[in-house]
């Protein structure tokens, strides 16, 4: 009976994690869309949603601590719960980055972009799909899925380098756009950080399944 109860609580924990992940994914997409469309209202909603993410983080943290205290899980069960604790920290940081991007939207709301945003939305699309894949890997307890997801970080890094070069070029050609270009550089950096956090989650999933903590080479 006790094991059954523990199993049920693990399932609930996973569902909450998936909900939190879905919210963070939405936030990231919405933040970048608010930027491309220069939609301040949408940006403010992203910023407001950060409180929901924080509340979910605290709720999941409480669930994990309760499971640790009352069920005292061992071995794989212990790794599952401790991995959940690590994942929520990464998700919360990602949400902070989405908020940072939304704040850039508010700064640039009345500006015309010197060059249309192409690579930044693509980076965001990749990074948010990494978030989803990372959480799927957690739920499926799949090292293969985690490793496949981690490889996408390379694509994000390449795009980041391209964005960086482009923006430097734009700022050289249009000195009046240095302010805008710097903000957009920050945005690209925030998205790159989101992908790094997704990579962390993938590495924790591999630890959860194998019991070995190591950085994945990719």
């Amino acid at each position, binding site marked *: 009976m006790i094991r059954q109860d523990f199993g049920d609580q693990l399932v609930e924990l996973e569902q909450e994690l998936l909900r939190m992940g879905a919210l963070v994914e939405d936030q990231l997409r919405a933040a970048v869309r608010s930027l491309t469309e220069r939609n301040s209202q949408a940006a403010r909603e992203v910023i407001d949603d950060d409180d929901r993410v924080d509340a979910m983080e605290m709720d999941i943290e409480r669930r994990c601590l309760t499971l640790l205290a009352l069920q005292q899980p061992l*071995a*794989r069960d212990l790794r599952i719960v401790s991995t959940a604790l690590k994942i929520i920290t990464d998700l919360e940081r990602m949400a902070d980055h989405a908020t940072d991007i939304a704040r850039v939207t508010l700064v640039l709301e009345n500006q015309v972009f010197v060059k249309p945003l192409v690579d930044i939305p693509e980076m965001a699309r990749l990074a948010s799909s990494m978030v989803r894949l990372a959480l799927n890997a957690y739920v499926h307890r799949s090292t293969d899925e985690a490793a496949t997801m981690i490889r996408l970080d390379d694509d994000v890094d390449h795009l980041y380098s391209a964005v960086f070069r482009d923006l430097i070029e734009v700022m050289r050609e249009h000195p009046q756009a240095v302010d805008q270009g710097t903000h957009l550089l920050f945005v690209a950096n925030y998205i790159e950080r989101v992908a790094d956090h997704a990579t962390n989650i993938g590495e924790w999933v591999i630890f959860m399944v194998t019991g070995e903590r190591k950085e994945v080479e990719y």
Partner: protein
Amino acid sequence: MMAPTVRCDQLSVWYGRHPALKSVSLSVQAGEVLALIGPSGCGKSTLLRAINRLLDEVAHIRIAGNVWVDDEDIYQKGVDVTTLRRRVGMVFQTPNPFPFTIFNNVAYGLRLTGKRTQSELRRVVEASLTKAALWDEVRGKLARPALSLSGGQQQRLCIARALAVEPTVLLMDEPTASLDPLSTARIEDLMGQLKGQYTIMMVTHNLRQAARVADRTAFFAKGELVEVGLTRQIFTAPSDRRTEEYLTGRYES
């Protein structure tokens, strides 16, 4: 690394035709606490009993392989079992003090050796009770019956009785199974103090106790030693699927 105090080499035990231990090879280092865990009937208590030859009197028993304690092959002919049991003390699940005074319980084994003066007895009794973390509670009450002590105190008295004859190894068979959480915590603290001076092998069904107390943990199933390793490793990331299933409550024997 120091030489092992206890070493089993391909130790097998049968009760009649039933194999209770299957070719177990295991070394226990001097001064370490080794926990033996596993489902009921897995052979862990049989192993413990094999180490001070408590199985000798069991009907239809057959033992194969070797056990060394302090470099002595204890199943060789001519081994003095009484001397062996002085070197290898045993503490059981239920405290079993003799129906004597507290003093006489601890002095019992010393008197068996015959040649102790009263003052020497007093010195060893005090030292043993101190080591067993009971002295402060019983000083001035040594003439009282041992059975007047609480369960937790009785268990520490039994540990003092075992320590009095200067063993090198302590075998503990679920030493806190009948104790409340406070007495359990005192015994666990005591094991922490005794380790280093004594080699301790403990059978326990309390996994958290093994996790708290033991340097290394050995998991047994169906008479086999499945794996042995650092407690930290076994309880967070065991290498065998059966250990994983047992620790997460999913093992089916």
